[in-house]
């Protein structure tokens, strides 16, 4: 890297020059910021302004640029200098638009702008343009665990885009549950009849694809590595082991039907004439489109489907969730009977009929065929005569009644084959009972973290593939209960994410949400005390431990949130463009007014994803807040290192507001646990405050949503008032 040459550019446009003394800012950038070049411009983001910067970079050897003007979120197209380190001082959204208008505020407004220029310069000098990983991982094959409908669809989707795929299937054949079904719920207009499962075609395409390798009767004995360089030991039943080198993993190992034996009151496991969906599919396959016969050979003349059997249960005995597909599946199976013989009495007993979207057409079609739907809740299924007697509450006719049928089908739910729940303690018997699917050689556990009810779903609504293990994607019913139509979309989507993961890995780029980021954590191992906080706290399981028990960073698993950096008590972890010093130097560079100035200084550490945009938008909408605050964006509140807090307190800051995302069950932190970790660490700040003889109110945290633009202004103003009441920090002048 060539020698650093810094330059500061100060924009006086958008009214900045009218309210703020730009000459003073220039002076500060030169004298205090020690910028080699300092220039101002009345329209910096315009062609001439950008041209000026570009020229300095190209011809004057400028390597580091500090732009003081609008927020870092604005004018990103204009200020696009990818080879140059850049810091932005937010004079517009952060000062001009939020400080109250009027001459009486000129002084504090100017001080605020002055400080932001100081901070911008300080940050800039500690930054480097990320050089990227020189040794990126290049394997681009996709491993698919599970050879059912989802798995085969995913493998084919990858192959069709030019990527090799490896399928590892536990059983001796491809096809999964769909392969054991007579037909599937229709996935295209007119949504009137069951359609062919398409499984035979999928199997044929998989087998004939030169890009797909299939391992049958195989499981994963161990999976090591990271995106772009996974090594998976594929063990066959016979004991032989093959190692497959792959770049990304799709986990599509499906579901297990909820055990009907757990529903004895509905005849499950006790009555031979009570089956589940899978049992009925077997009977339908045996019938080959003809009249369906029971296991005992009797032709079924009447059948009842009991929906939500062992599902939507709030007693804690059965599955609490809805499996989503069962209404359509029962409709499909009811059609098996009606299509073969319209005279079969076919009743679907439901509580809420759940056939979203075009499923409504499928529902209508079943009614057209004479399937009777009734809103009711079954109480008991007992043997009666040659068949069953279903006692139920008829919710429409408002009576307890009963009906008789030759066969009862229980619409039980899907239980995810998600492997081990890694969050459980090792001695938990529930953990011991489960067999791992992926057998990841990760510090943080063998399988994907479970979101809820045993499914490996993403927690994010906007980002359904954001699992907590980069480059590993759960798909199909292991991710969320679903039907074939959804599984198909899911599998194709997951294939894309796997492809993206290998492409990212090959270039050393971060995945979402910091997609494209080339920085990655660097660690000074000589300073490391092997405290393991970084490995434990990493939300993405990116850090292992090497044989000497030092942290081993797997860059292509890392999402660049900086939680490890925040966790590190000895501050040996850093990013080239974001580190303890980039923030620390900003905290320490202020022109701190003395204790008697009545001008407190409040530090805001704001999550760049939500809180900082909220502050920006407070500005955009001109919600006035105190000019005593100085906001610094952080990648995640989880990257907050406690040294920043102690540094700030020691430097005489009067208060600190930490603004992060919501934590808890419905967390909104983009890095899963960052916000929670920050809160946890801060619970220990009290000791520091006590040692310094400071009030606990000097450090506060708030959960801020991106919509909280009015609220964050209010929080600031209330806090400043509170600090004024407590009094300014006695620490000033000691820093």
């Amino acid at each position: 890297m060539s020698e650093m040459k810094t330059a500061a550019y100060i924009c006086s446009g958008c009214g900045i020059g009218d309210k703020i003394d730009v000459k003073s800012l220039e002076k500060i950038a030169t004298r205090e910021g020690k910028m080699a070049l300092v220039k101002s411009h009345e329209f910096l983001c315009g062609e001439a302004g950008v041209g000026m910067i570009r020229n300095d970079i190209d011809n004057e050897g400028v390597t580091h640029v500090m732009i003081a003007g609008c927020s870092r979120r604005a004018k990103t197209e204009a200020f696009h200098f990818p080879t140059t380190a850049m810091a932005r001082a937010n004079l517009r959204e952060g000062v001009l638009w939020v400080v109250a208008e009027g001459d009486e505020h000129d002084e504090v407004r100017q001080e605020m702008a002055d400080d932001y220029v100081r901070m911008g310069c300080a940050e800039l000098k500690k930054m480097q343009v990320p050089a990227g990983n020189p040794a990126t991982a290049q394997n681009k094959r996709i491993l698919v665990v599970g050879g059912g409908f989802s798995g085969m669809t995913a493998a084919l989707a990858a192959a069709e885009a030019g990527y090799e795929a490896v399928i590892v299937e536990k059983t001796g054949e491809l096809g999964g549950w769909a392969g054991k079904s007579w037909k599937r719920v229709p996935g295209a207009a007119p949504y009137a009849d069951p359609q062919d499962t398409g499984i035979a075609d999928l199997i044929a395409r998989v087998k004939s694809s030169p890009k797909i390798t299939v391992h049958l009767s195989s499981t994963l004995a161990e999976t090591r590595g990271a995106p772009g360089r996974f090594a998976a030991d594929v063990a066959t039943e016979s004991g032989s082991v093959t190692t497959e080198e792959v770049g990304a993993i799709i986990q599509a190992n499906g579901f297990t039907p909820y055990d009907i034996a757990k529903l004895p009151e509905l005849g499950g496991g006790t009555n031979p004439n009570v089956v589940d969906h899978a049992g009925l599919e077997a009977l339908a396959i045996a019938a080959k489109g003809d009249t369906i016969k029971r296991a005992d050979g009797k032709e079924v003349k009447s059948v009842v489907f009991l929906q939500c059997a062992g599902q939507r249960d709030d007693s804690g005995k059965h599955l609490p969730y809805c499996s989503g597909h069962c209404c359509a599946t029962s409709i499909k199976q009811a059609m098996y009977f009606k299509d073969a013989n319209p005279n079969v009495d076919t009743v679907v007993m439901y509580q809420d009929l759940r056939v979203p979207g075009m499923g409504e057409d499928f529902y209508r079609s079943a009614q057209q065929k004479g399937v009777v739907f009734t809103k009711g809740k079954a109480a008991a299924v007992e043997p009666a005569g040659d068949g069953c007697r279903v006692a139920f509450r008829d919710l429409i006719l408002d009576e307890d009644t009963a009906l008789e049928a030759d066969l009862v089908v229980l619409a039980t739910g899907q239980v995810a084959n998600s492997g081990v729940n890694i969050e459980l303690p090792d001695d938990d018997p529930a953990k011991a009972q489960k067999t791992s699917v992926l057998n990841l050689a990760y510090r943080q556990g063998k399988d994907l973290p479970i979101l809820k009810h045993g499914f490996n779903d993403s927690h994010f609504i906007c980002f359904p593939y954001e699992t907590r293990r980069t480059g590993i994607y759960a798909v199909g019913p292991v991710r969320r209960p679903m039907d074939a139509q959804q599984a198909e979309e899911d599998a194709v989507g997951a294939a894309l994410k796997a492809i993206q993961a290998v492409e990212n890995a090959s270039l050393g780029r971060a995945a979402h949400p910091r997609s494209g980021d080339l920085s990655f954590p660097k660690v000074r191992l000589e300073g490391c005390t092997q405290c393991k906080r970084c490995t434990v706290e990493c939300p993405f399981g990116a850090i292992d431990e090497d044989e000497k028990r030092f942290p081993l960073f797997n860059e292509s698993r890392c999402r660049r949130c900086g939680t490890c950096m925040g966790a590190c008590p000895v501050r040996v972890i850093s990013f080239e463009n974001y580190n303890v010093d980039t923030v620390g130097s900003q905290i320490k560079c202020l022109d701190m007014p003395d204790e008697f100035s009545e001008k407190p200084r409040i530090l805001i550490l704001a999550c760049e994803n939500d809180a900082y945009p909220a502050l920006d938008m407070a500005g955009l909408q001109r919600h006035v807040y105190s000019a005593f605050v100085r906001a610094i964006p952080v990648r995640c509140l989880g990257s907050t290192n406690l040294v920043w807090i102690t540094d700030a307190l020691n430097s005489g800051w009067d208060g600190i507001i930490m603004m992060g995302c919501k934590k808890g069950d419905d967390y909104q932190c983009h890095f899963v646990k960052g916000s929670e970790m920050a809160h946890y660490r801060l619970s220990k700040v009290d000791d520091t405050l006590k040692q310094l003889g400071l009030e606990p109110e000097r450090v506060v945290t708030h959960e801020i949503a991106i919509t909280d633009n009015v609220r964050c202004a209010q929080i600031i103003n209330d806090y400043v008032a509170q600090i004024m009441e407590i009094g300014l920090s006695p620490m000033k002048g000691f820093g």
Partner: protein
Amino acid sequence: MTGNIATNRTVLVVGGGISGMTAALEAAECGKEVILVEKLPTLGGRTARLYRYFPKMCHPTCGLEINLRRIKGNRKVQVLTMTEVVAVQGRRGDYRVSLRIAPRHVNENCTACGDCAKAVDAEIPDPFEYGLKTTKAAYLPHAMAYPQRYVLDPSIIGTADAEKAQAACKVGAIDVAMAEETVDINVGAVIWATGWKPYDAEKIQPYGYGRFKNVITSLEFERLADPAGPTGGKLLRPSDGKEARNIAFIQCAGSRDENHLRHCSRICCMASLKQTQYVREACPDGSGKSTIYYIDIRAIDRFEDFYQNVQKDPSVSFVKSKVARIAEGEDGNLVLHGVNTEGYHRYAADHDLVVLAVGMEPEAKGIRLPEDIVTDSSGFIEGSKDEGMFGAGAAASPLDVNRATQSATAAALRAIQVIHKTAATETAA
């Protein structure tokens, strides 16, 4: 047009809502060139106008921020706003697409400083707020608008207001003479992520939307709940600005109805369950009451948890009934007439605000799609016969956001497959 030159290796994404942005970004982050066109002046689509998402009660703009940052940081995605597709010719792997770009009258110089808005007098119904408030005729579509540039409403072009706006702009961003442009581009695959529109509630006559002021749509209710919305987040009813305390949510307003939309719109049950929590939040003293009138509550998979929690909420009650009709009382209150079919109980229930959980209709319904495109009976896009064009998100099916982005991700791969095959064929030749 500036930036990338489109080729038959380029993916065109039509629609800049969450599905379109997702499809564009997922393809671009796999290394593909993408052109993303949006009809409106800003990206963000319908979801940007929602206050919160179910089931986490998180904020749609949170994901929007991330997606915008991805777009800002990825030069492979080229965004064209105020742009519509007017024609598609050619075939899979080699389409010629005509784009029509409407004049924004504000160029790239715009810094979003707001001087033009101050200068202009004319006000228009704020499109972002469904007209629940007005905005200046020179406006930034919303706080997170991208591109962050103002727009001049066509109604002031040729008036003194436009001149005033131009005079007020210090950076020469306003171009009153800007004209409509037509551009032809070459692309290999097209993803239609044109999204959905709310079913026209006025057509559901017995509910009196458009006749009774206090009958509003679920989308309008989102704006009322939003602190950045027209009422500052207070649930004020339109007739008299009184805080609504006894709110009815009518499910299947247009959906599951052969007089209106044949399909189930999937999201509305969860949307109303979510909105009951806005009511709860708005009335911390517990004085807020929500009543959901439904046929079936369709809270599938773990959404069931959310449903069960709402069921436990004493401020929310459920009536299994499709409301027959609504009558307006003198005080602006509304009387809902119907029968609870669980056991047959007739009601005439008084509410101070009625929210219609309006159904989703494909936005593309009614606009001319290329002939090759296949739609289902409700007008949702199934894809093109030549398998080079794909529907994504709510353009393809009534989907919630999570499933829409999933669908968009899948569509991105399908488009990549087309590009891959085109490239392979051309290399081979």
